[in-house]
């Protein structure tokens, strides 16, 4: 077992970076350099952790780097971190996304404050993925709202105030259910053990409860995660918020905060309440499938590129939910992989849309046409990201969607059948949008092609898309044992292997 210090560093480094950036905010470029430096360190740390990670720790299952300190005993409050294959992937994604958002979507308006909020958000997101305690997870989960709120409300588009409020209140309301569910679970466990109040993940996961209680608790947890993900029908905050947020904010929201939702669904709602599975699975699978079709349909008709990605994310989140809720190992591995791949792909999309917006001042599809001629590199980059999102074999999106669908076909064929339609629809709306933006005759003012900086920022995105499409094995090897662990915990209650 490795020291938990590594994980604490992952949380503390961006926190220190945020503080440093806030302190030097008056000096030109200083805050930005601090932020980039911090996120490079963070990226390096996450890679070190990825290589050190050991998926067979005696007594701790697939959790490594564990450490626990009680902070306030009467509240059962503790700082408890640990990492398994699933969180590992999310940690790497977090570090990567922030680095790319900083490099590719620089916002020079009051930059010191902006990067400070961004780093703060990174720290809280890291905390959520590393939390090995349900209450601690909730606290970090809730904390992410504050920096996200300030980023949207101060650096967003014309309707930023409305978008920020809508985002905050929706998520806050969802969290109310998670909060009460968490408290209930903690006390149920305390009454059973007659011990001290604790919210430790490993302790709570062995709480005995009736299938009715489990179902209610699952619903309470799932509401919070469905808002965050978003899962249909609790998604209605997302199009406005994604569209109004500044580019870096949209990236954080869709590539990271959305993953908090699906990560929470898998780690907590799914794994803590095995007895709820039989009751909730048909509902959750149906919501996932509706989300896929609904998101794809709206993505096809929306006039705005950012909203298009928002709706396409809704569809992708549907795939992830489908994969998780089938309870089949292959599909769940695919879902975790898709969480990562979707993160990378959306970063690519939003960066590219940001580049387009910078040139044209608009992300409305009707304002854009014939960009292929003047900007061939931009068009090529867009094509790669788009094809990965559609699920072209050889690119990353294919592997994850394929795993989800074959897993789902084996266990829940009807839902999988409808879900597969989503793959076709994705090709439809993405290709159509591509045609309208890049094909045709260009008119209006001249536009420049991708600058060197923009090209370099996109390199990691393209490399990951191709690498994980061709050779996903190292990643799958790290996810599989942890997913197996979750399934073995849930399986005695009747989940198919």
């Amino acid at each position, binding site marked *: 077992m490795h020291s938990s210090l590594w994980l604490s560093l992952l949380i503390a480094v961006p926190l220190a970076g945020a503080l440093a950036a806030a302190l030097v905010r008056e000096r030109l470029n200083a805050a930005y350099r601090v932020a980039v430096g911090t996120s490079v360190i963070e990226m390096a740390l996450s890679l070190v952790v990825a290589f050190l990670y050991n998926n067979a720790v005696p007594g701790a299952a697939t959790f490594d780097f564990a450490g626990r300190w009680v*902070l306030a005993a*009467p509240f059962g*409050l503790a700082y408890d971190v640990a990492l398994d294959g699933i969180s590992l992937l999310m940690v790497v994604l977090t570090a990567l996304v922030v680095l790319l958002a900083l490099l590719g979507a620089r916002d020079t308006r009051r930059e010191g404050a902006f990067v400070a909020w961004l780093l703060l958000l990174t720290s809280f997101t890291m905390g959520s993925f590393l939390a090995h305690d349900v209450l601690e997870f909730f606290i970090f989960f809730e904390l992410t709202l*504050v920096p996200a709120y300030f980023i949207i409300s101060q650096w967003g588009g014309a309707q930023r105030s409305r978008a*920020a*409020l809508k985002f905050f209140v929706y998520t806050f309301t969802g969290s109310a259910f998670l909060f*009460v569910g968490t*408290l209930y679970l903690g006390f149920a466990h305390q009454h059973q053990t007659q011990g001290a109040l604790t919210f430790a993940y490993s302790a709570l996961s062995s709480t005995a409860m009736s299938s009715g209680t489990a179902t209610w608790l699952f619903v309470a947890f799932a509401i919070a995660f469905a808002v965050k993900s978003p899962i249909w029908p609790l998604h209605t905050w997302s199009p406005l918020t994604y569209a109004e947020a500044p580019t870096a904010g949209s990236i954080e929201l869709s590539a990271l905060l959305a993953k908090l939702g699906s990560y929470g669904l898998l780690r907590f709602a799914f794994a803590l309440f095995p007895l709820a599975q039989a009751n909730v699975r048909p509902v959750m699978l149906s919501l996932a499938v509706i989300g896929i079709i609904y998101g794809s349909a709206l993505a096809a008709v929306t006039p705005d590129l950012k909203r298009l990605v928002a709706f396409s994310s809704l569809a992708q989140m549907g795939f992830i939910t489908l994969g998780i809720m089938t309870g089949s190992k292959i599909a769940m591995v695919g879902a975790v992989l898709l969480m990562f791949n979707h993160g990378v792909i959306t970063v690519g999309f939003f960066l590219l849309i940001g580049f387009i917006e910078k040139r044209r001042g608009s992300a409305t599809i009707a304002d854009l046409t014939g960009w292929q001629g003047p900007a061939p590199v931009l068009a090529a980059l867009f094509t790669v990201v788009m094809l990965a999102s559609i699920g072209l074999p050889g690119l990353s999106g294919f592997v994850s969607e394929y795993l989800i669908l074959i897993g789902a076909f084996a266990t829940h064929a009807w839902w999988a059948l409808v879900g597969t339609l989503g793959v076709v629809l994705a090709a439809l709306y993405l290709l159509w949008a591509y045609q309208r933006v890049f094909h045709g005759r260009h008119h209006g003012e001249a536009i420049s092609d991708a600058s060197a900086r923009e090209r370099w920022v996109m390199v990691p995105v393209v490399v990951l898309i191709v690498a994980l499409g061709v050779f996903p094995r190292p990643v799958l090897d790290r996810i599989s044992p942890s997913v197996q662990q979750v399934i073995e915990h849930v399986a005695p209650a009747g989940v198919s292997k």
Partner: protein
Amino acid sequence: MTSLMPSIHYLAVLPAALVLGASVLALILTSLVRGGISTRTSTGISVLAGLATLVVTFFQWSYVAHHGATTTIDHAIVLDGFSVVATGVLAVSLIMAALVAHDWLSRSAVSGPQFHILALAASAGALVMVQANDLVVIFLGLEILSIGLYVLVALDRHRASSSEAALKYFLLGGFASAIFIYGAALVYGATGTTNVSSISYFLAGNVLLRPGLLWAGGALLLVGFAFKVAAVPFHLWSPDVYEGAPTPVTGFMASIVKVGAFAALVRVIISALGTQMDTWRPILFALVVLTTLVGASMALIQRNVKRMLAYSSINHAGFILLGVWSATTRGNAATLFYLMTYAPIVVATFAVVALVGGARDDAHAIDRYRGLARRQPLLGGALAILLLSQLGVPLTTGFYAKFAVLASAVDAGGGALAVIALLAAAIAAFFYLRWVLALYAEEPVELDRVVVGRASALVIGLGVAITLVFGVWPGPLAALASHATVLFTP
């Protein structure tokens, strides 16, 4: 000889005696010293009295830790962990409120030592309330507190709204007091005593064949308390009074009255009537639902920040009632913890409002705050933190306060109630955030800089420090609150 004169435990009554003594001292000095005493001197007296009380609570705490809880003066006054911690909270609120008032008195047309004399007297009333173990003594404390406040609310004679608010507060407060004392009389009729411990023994040992008298009495007591803490539907006075009163007085009221009234409410409901909890639970349930929801929703439509904070404090009262509803040791600790964290935050918030309100104390439209955090990052940032703390964001004490009461409610089987309260908190998020949005708005219009006095800066800094330090590390406060309730005796 001894039978007529009950023994007095002087350590137990020292806080109230000290604070009342300070009030009298200031009064005497005012009449003896030629030209009256300066604002600085009277503030000094208030702050020193508060600090001395704080020191006394340490001795009281160690006494209670070694000798256990005790009662004195014929069991009318109680000295236990609960009262000691509540006393400490009152002392801190008094110090902070006196400092806020100091800046206001130095720059406004209202001057003189009246504020401090009255505030000290009112605080003595609140101190009596948190230690009272007898319905009559609770009433006594309540009246001392209220009469001081009626005058304090009317202190700003240059504004008609101040007098208007005082009259409203006085009339409705008089009604509430009458209802309370009537309730006490009915409870006396039903149980033959007004002593909290005796009522509790009586009810534990006897079955009332016709409990109507007790129910009516308890209900009237509850109405009296609900009025004082501004629980819906007895809240109608509070927005007008909060708005009309001079802002430092509003801050003082919001903290001191809540602490005093809730501490006494816990004693009456949990200690005296604890055996009848099944009767009171549904009523408290309705009070919590109405108070949290109405407080949050009505705050949404206010344009005046003082009215908004009035409704916000109604919303908070609903949350504190949630701890009372639980009626468990955990619930009492949660109530106490909520008061400990809420009091300093609300005084600090009103300190900012008092500063922004200007010399005439009338600039309280939310538009006055537009861009404040851009022009004065420290002041605006501090207000943003205080508001986020009231909203209940993690890493602030406001989160753990809500956590504590919700946890106690869930533990006592009130999952549904906790969800309702949290949904109210989500509604409340709207107006706190709207205010925060205004703070950070890009404002082309240049408004005057808000002048921050040293005393107010100290209070605001203290409020922010308390909410952040204990927000990250709530361990000590949580332990204090739960120890205080372990010692709590009926």
